[in-house]
């Protein structure tokens, strides 16, 4: 395996991905990601010098529209999906002491 994923890297990815992994899961993730990156490294066989990255297949740029409300008031419906709510607002755990 050419790509060795370090403990630090997997910790960092866990933070970015907001995932909590057990030690066993971390080992598995290191192996899976290493294998996948080895496979992706094949792209380096291609010379892409001077090729613009293509994010969209059609040449569309920003699409603008008037900022007009077109949907009705769905506040109650939306809040009914929240794991916790209070006084018409989403309730979150304490964010600072």
């Amino acid at each position, binding site marked *: 395996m050419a790509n060795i994923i370090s403990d630090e890297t997997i910790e960092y990815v866990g933070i970015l991905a907001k*995932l*909590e992994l057990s030690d066993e899961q971390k080992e598995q993730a290191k192996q899976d990601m290493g294998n996948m990156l080895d496979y992706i490294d094949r792209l380096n066989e291609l010379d892409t010098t001077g090729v613009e990255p293509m*994010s969209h297949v059609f040449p569309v740029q920003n699409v603008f529209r008037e900022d007009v409300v077109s949907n009705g008031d769905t506040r109650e419906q939306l809040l009914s999906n929240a794991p916790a709510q209070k006084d018409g607002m989403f309730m979150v755990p304490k964010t600072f002491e």
Partner: protein
Amino acid sequence: MSIMDMTAVELSAAIKSGATTAVEAAQIMLDQIEKQDAVYNCYVTVDREGALKQAEEVQARIESGECSGPLAGVPAAIKDNMCIEGMLTTCSSKILSNFVPAYTAEAVLNLKKAGAVILGKANMDEFAMGSTTETSAYGVTRNPWDTDRVPGGSSGGCAAAVAADECFYALGSDTGGSIRQPASYCGTVGMKPTYGTVSRYGLIAYGSSLDQIGPLTKDVTDCAAGLQTIASHDVKDSTSIERGDTDFMSALIDDVRGMRIGIPRDYFGEGLDEEVKEAVLRAAKELEQRGAAVEEFDLSLTEYAIPTYYTIAAAEASSNLERFDGIKYGYRAGDYSGLHNMYKKTRSEGFGEEVKRRIMLGSFVLSSGYYDAYYLKALRVKALIKKAFDDAFSKYDVILGPVAPTTAPRLGSSLADPIKMYLGDIYTIAVNLAGLPAISLPCGADRNGLPIGLQLIGDCFQEKKLIQTAYTYEKIRGAFPSAGKKEVE
């Protein structure tokens, strides 16, 4: 002819003529689901009462002449990643186990306006990440042709429901082959339209630059009718495209004289099952005999499509799935300390293994220090792949090849080796990278009686050439049995 033997378009005509009613059709489908779905598990949610109520309303609209489209009154299944107001929408994930949307996806709304009766939500790979429907949090779906085999994925519930006569057609989504491959494994027709043809509003995003909604149907006529019904320009989806040529049923023409068909040699190399290869090349021969100009060519870059796709799709998935954090909807972990720990626990408990694998890979390729080497590199290769297709379509109207290297694999044989599973997407994935339309339709069966799929790929906005070629081939081939009737054969 019994109702179940009818295609969607035939059923709608029968309802309009008074030979049957939308309510009777819905009841027959609900009875089929009741009878079989404990085995197949095509559906995550079945909306019995809602379906019968919709059927009564649609019947009245048909009788009053208000609803006259080709699919009016016909019962359909919707993949469980499309929002329907008031109906549980899980994406086959634990993290959305209790999510009831406040609005309906535009494509589904278009169907409803045209008189569809929605039976329920079809099972899928969790967040559409998978090729077998085995990563669903709500159990595997079984292939109606052989219940020891997978239906394909990620729209496996849709394809199996059509094959098992548990709906007349379904709406799926295709990010890397997720409509075409299960259609192939289940012996149904499936189409991925040109990117931007169908609004993604209300489709729970996986890889936004690749995702596209499309129909899974019993035949090519139903496919054209389905696509014609859902295609629309939508200001709520900024990637939606305004195109005036969505009268796809006008392309149901039994004639391929002069159609230039290219067969990419790259799609017939190592890894392709011999029986699949023979069936696909036989179809090409038959189209040639009907007057198409068929020749082989080198498409190039085929082996780079999969690593390009998994980089881009994982990157977009890691960003799109950030929203599942236990605050606004869905599952929240029961035990946590503070906000960040709640996020982490909720996501770790709520997402399955394949989803976590892709979120982590995506987070990595987008992270500072790796962004250029992985993500931008993949976007550059994507440009090269698009160019290879542009070159091919300067010579050909249609590219013809297999959908998948094999017929449906056995349950439990795919997930252990992710890269091997990803390789199964080799013939479908480049189509999404290049934004192209492609259709999958049955072209035979292997020695085990499992359906083999033929894939036709067109240039952007050339769905009509695909529909015309597929329709002509279907006429040559003759009727393809549905799984429910295979034992009678």
